């Protein structure tokens, strides 16, 4: 148990270091993820571009740093939204009339029956053609949050039902506890359910965004994203010229391993 806690703290520390390095790279004077150096297309290591440039002459290190920050921020925000929605739906359904609970679970079943990647593709492809990159990033993570809550809500519902039937809560309700007071007592008791759901959702959303981006349906250019950078691997001409092209995928796997290590059996 102590070993697990230690490895989790180490993973968290390493992830924090990566985030700080990414912030330093992105915020450095003159650094821009969209600025093009037309003299240095697909360049290798140089003093100006330590990890080279992409096919459009943009600094790879700045783009990777920005992709890491964007993806983590988006995934954490989406996971927080998902967890909050699940907590609200699960708790309200458990403490309302039985028919409302059944209805909420039926809605969860409908969402769970829909394969999320297909649904994501469907929603993304039905967006206006003129959607800006920033909007496409926000919409991608919002859609992920909107589709991620049902499984978590089911678990919260079960947990809340158990709590509703717990003797201490029956006693408290009989004593006149209601509404907001119930939520204040129930939500802390649901934390052991909500925290793992939140931590598991973060790497799942990072992977989902990367997969969507690799299919060309994720965050729009010129904003950097893991998926967009994975698309570079399709270009064999680039692979011959520089091995820095593997940097995004290596870093993505490292970030995901760290997130999995943090999420494991909280």
């Amino acid at each position, binding site marked *: 148990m102590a070993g697990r806690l230690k490895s989790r703290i180490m993973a968290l520390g390493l992830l924090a270091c990566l985030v700080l390095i990414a912030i330093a790279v992105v915020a450095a004077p003159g650094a821009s993820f969209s600025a093009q150096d037309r003299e240095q297309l697909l360049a290798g290591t140089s003093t100006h571009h330590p990890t080279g440039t992409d096919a459009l002459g943009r600094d790879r290190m700045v783009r990777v740093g920005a992709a890491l920050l964007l993806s983590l921020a988006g995934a954490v925000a989406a996971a927080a939204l998902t967890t909050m929605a699940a907590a609200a739906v699960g708790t309200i359904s458990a403490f309302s009339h039985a028919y409302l609970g059944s209805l909420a679970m039926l809605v969860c079943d409908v969402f769970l029956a829909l394969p999320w990647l297909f649904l994501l593709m469907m929603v993304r492809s039905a967006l206006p053609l003129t959607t800006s990159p920033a909007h496409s990033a926000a919409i991608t993570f919002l859609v992920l949050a909107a589709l991620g809550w049902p499984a978590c809500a089911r678990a919260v519902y079960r947990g809340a039902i158990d709590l509703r039937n717990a003797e201490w809560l029956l006693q408290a309700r009989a004593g006149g506890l209601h509404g907001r007071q119930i939520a204040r007592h129930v939500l802390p008791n649901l934390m052991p359910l909500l925290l793992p759901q939140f931590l598991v959702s973060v790497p799942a959303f990072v992977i989902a965004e990367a997969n969507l981006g690799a299919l060309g349906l994720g965050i729009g250019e010129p904003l950097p994203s893991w998926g967009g950078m994975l698309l570079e691997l399709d270009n064999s001409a680039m692979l011959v010229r520089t091995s820095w092209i593997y940097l995004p995928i290596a870093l993505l*796997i490292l970030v995901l391993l760290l997130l999995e290590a943090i999420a494991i059996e909280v």
Partner: protein
Amino acid sequence: MKLVVHLLQRLARTIVLIVLVVIASTVLIRCAPGYLSDAREMDARYAAAARADLSTEAARSQSLRQMLFTEIDGWTHGSLGLSREYGVPVLELVLPRVAVTVKLMLRAIVFAWALALCASLLSSARRNPSLLWQAPATLLLAVPTAALATLCLLVDCGSPVLVMTLLLAARDFKFLDRMLRKAWRDPHLLQARAQGLTTFRLLCAHILPGIRTQLLALATLSIVTALSALVPVEVIFSVPGLGQLAWNAAMNRDLPVLLAVTMIMAVAVTFAGMASDGPAEWQGA
């Protein structure tokens, strides 16, 4: 009699669920802000009159009720609607690809289960989780499907079946290992082992029947995971299956095709869920 009633109830719930899935997907698509936009409207080569025709055509399908009616009508008549891009019934596009996808998924699921079961049996026999099995599974779970498929294609040593097998096996292994590790520690099994019952007999007579329900649930999860991995794998390896069709439809905004493929996937997931929950519930009934 009780069993028949239970089966009918379960079937009715599944049908209601599918109808709700159709309605929810249609509403979702119709309410998306860009539903009425058409890529051809932005093409300067089209004359103003042609663009006006496109707008009229889009306006005609503006009503949600009309859209739902067309969708359900397409399903009841077996054509699954009309493709916006190709102008042919969606069924004509879907049918030749179903066999390809089913074959790919079945092979991947069978290989993955064989691999995960062997690995978890070997791994769970040890007292502590072995890094030899855990590390590759953890690593595979951390690699996005698209990245793994691209890497396999780059090093020229993989096929779509291999990529899907590895992804499914890693996920299945994590669950199976935990299930078997827990089962091996059951007091009655410790007693049986102490009395000299062979491992094979223990597995066949005690462990596997004991975790049958969880195995069925895991089988459903395998199908869902395989469906999620289908699109990147088929697109990257150019496999002419349903995943590639859905991706093409998404890129070309051919929403009737995308909607039909999503529905087929949803029906598959719903029936798989029904099949996995079935035995335990039927036993209870």
